[in-house]
């Protein structure tokens, strides 16, 4: 079972996704914005990060950038409910920055499970070889 960091500013979404993820037997830690997400990411060891894009304080794109700098092999699923220019732009950008999968809200249960299975089954990003199955939140030496 995997340990997953879930970052979203919308509590209803956090509750929903946590329930869904936990139903598959995974453990979930949550954060309500990018700053909190980075803090928890640094402090813990996560198999996967699921993060929203549009958030107060620190939005998801910036957070993904910093996570990927700290841990190039970090597995990330980006999610978005859209915004001024639709969610595709943000999600495309997140994918370019190395997000393993992108999901548009509202996410269907099957979609979420499929993305979890795919990402967790993948060893790590092909572009970033890393031997450790668990991705360290601390910067790689």
């Amino acid at each position: 079972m995997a340990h997953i960091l879930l970052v979203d500013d919308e509590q209803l979404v956090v509750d929903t996704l946590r329930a869904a993820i936990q139903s598959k037997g995974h453990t979930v830690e949550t954060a309500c914005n990018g700053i909190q997400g980075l803090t928890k990411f640094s402090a813990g060891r996560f198999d996967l990060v699921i993060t929203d894009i549009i958030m107060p304080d620190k939005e998801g794109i910036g957070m993904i950038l910093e996570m990927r700098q700290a841990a190039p092999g970090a597995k990330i699923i980006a999610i978005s409910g859209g915004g001024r220019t639709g969610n595709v732009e943000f999600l495309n950008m997140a994918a370019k920055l190395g997000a393993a999968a992108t999901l548009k809200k509202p996410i269907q249960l099957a979609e979420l499970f499929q993305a979890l299975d795919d990402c967790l089954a993948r060893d790590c990003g092909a572009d970033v070889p890393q031997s450790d199955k668990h991705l360290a939140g601390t910067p790689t030496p």
Partner: protein
Amino acid sequence: MFETGLLPDWKAEPEAKYRGLLEAAPDAMVVVNQYGEIVLLNLQAEKQFGYRRDELLYQKVTNIIPKGFAERLIADGTRTAAEALDQQIGTGIELTGLRKDGGEFPIEIMLSPLENSEGILVTAAIRDISLRKAAEEHLAHMESRYRGLLEAAPDAMVVVNRYGEIVLLNLQAEKQFGYRRDELLGQQVKNIIPNGFAERLIADGTRTAAEALGQQIGTGIELTGLRKDGGEFPIEIMLSPLESAEGTLVTAAIRDISLRKDMETQNAQLHAKLRHAEKIEAIGTLAGGVAHELNNLLQPIIMMTELVLTELPADGQQAKQLLRVVDAGGKAAEIVQRILAFGRVDEACYDALDAGCVVREAIAFIRTILPSSVTLHISDIEDIGNGGTIRGNKTQLTQILMNMASNARDAIAANVGTVWISLSRLEAGDKRPAVRIGAVHPGPYVVLTVRDTGAGMDEATMARIFEPFFTTKDVGKGTGLGLSITHGIITSHGGAMQVDSAPGRGTKFSIYLPIEETQPVLALAS
């Protein structure tokens, strides 16, 4: 003082009477015999020519009128002196007088015969016309100056009398209306300005003609001009009165304002497009914000329900009910996606497409949504072949076709009607059509039209159909988003759109998509 020469018969007459008459005459009077000698003259003659009477008597008349007088009295091979004189009688002849001091001055003479025993004498009444000539020259000079001004005027100038007849015009008037000057002079001004000009000059129960004109002076009046070839063009006229011997004339300065009107129209269209773009932009911002919030709320509705469903027997009543919640959530999510389409076309992936293939595939869907009361006519789809390669998103193009077809169906409503769909090419050399959405630039385009026999629309409705949430359909029948989304899709494809309609005359939508001069990479016919 009155002296006579060879006039024995005159002495027999009551001399004082004639002398009085002669001396009182306002003109110079000179009597000349058949030898061209002055035999009698009056005080005015002395004054005019600067001689004393005795200096002129029995002298040749050519001394004071060097040319044109004596010759008129001379017999030649074809006429007698009497006949020669006869021909001159009563006519005013303009000649030149020569004063004693050598000065010349213009004169007008009137001749009359005077018979006596010596033969025929000639009486000449000589008028000094220096002043009149000077006045005429001045007038001619002024007229030439004013004519120059008139002809140089940048506007057409037309002078009209009280009968509405053109009495004067300039070169610009000829050019503007396409007539030669002689074709317009004396004609009714109504021939070139059918309405609104003559009426302005007419007196009625409440005003005289002068008052009527007075009310129009100085104001720019917009009317329509009519050219000789029947063409109409917008004009602005300025009227001013012109006093003349014929009474008050009206001078009209007529300006062709076609260019100004065109600019005004273009400006209005540009402003309308700008307002529309701003509105779409504002709605897009709003829609983006709303979509974000709604998607966050739809997330627990859909996923929590799905989670509960995983714990319920699939065929149970509760599971069926909860599935409807999931379905409703899904539909709500679709609407949100459509709203997002204002901001930009979402998920757009553009490929080289064969327009004919896209339309043929869309027609298959369209057939499924048209009731049997609506006949579908397809034309020209095959002909376009691979010549109609466009860069676009097939799903979106199918969506707009479906949207227009469903609008056509709804416009026909419960009636029997027809929907025509056609695809053609607008070649690079063809005239660019007028469009409401986007712009048709130089180059080839595919033209997709969907026409129906439905209720049609008035101009006010047409002006609003691309606005988000504008709908003519009953509550619950339409979201008012279809054509807004179409607008967004067409724009993102670099295309343009036109709508032609009138109440009771059906509607035609024309979509212009730029042709890409390469072959389609996707085989879409499959």
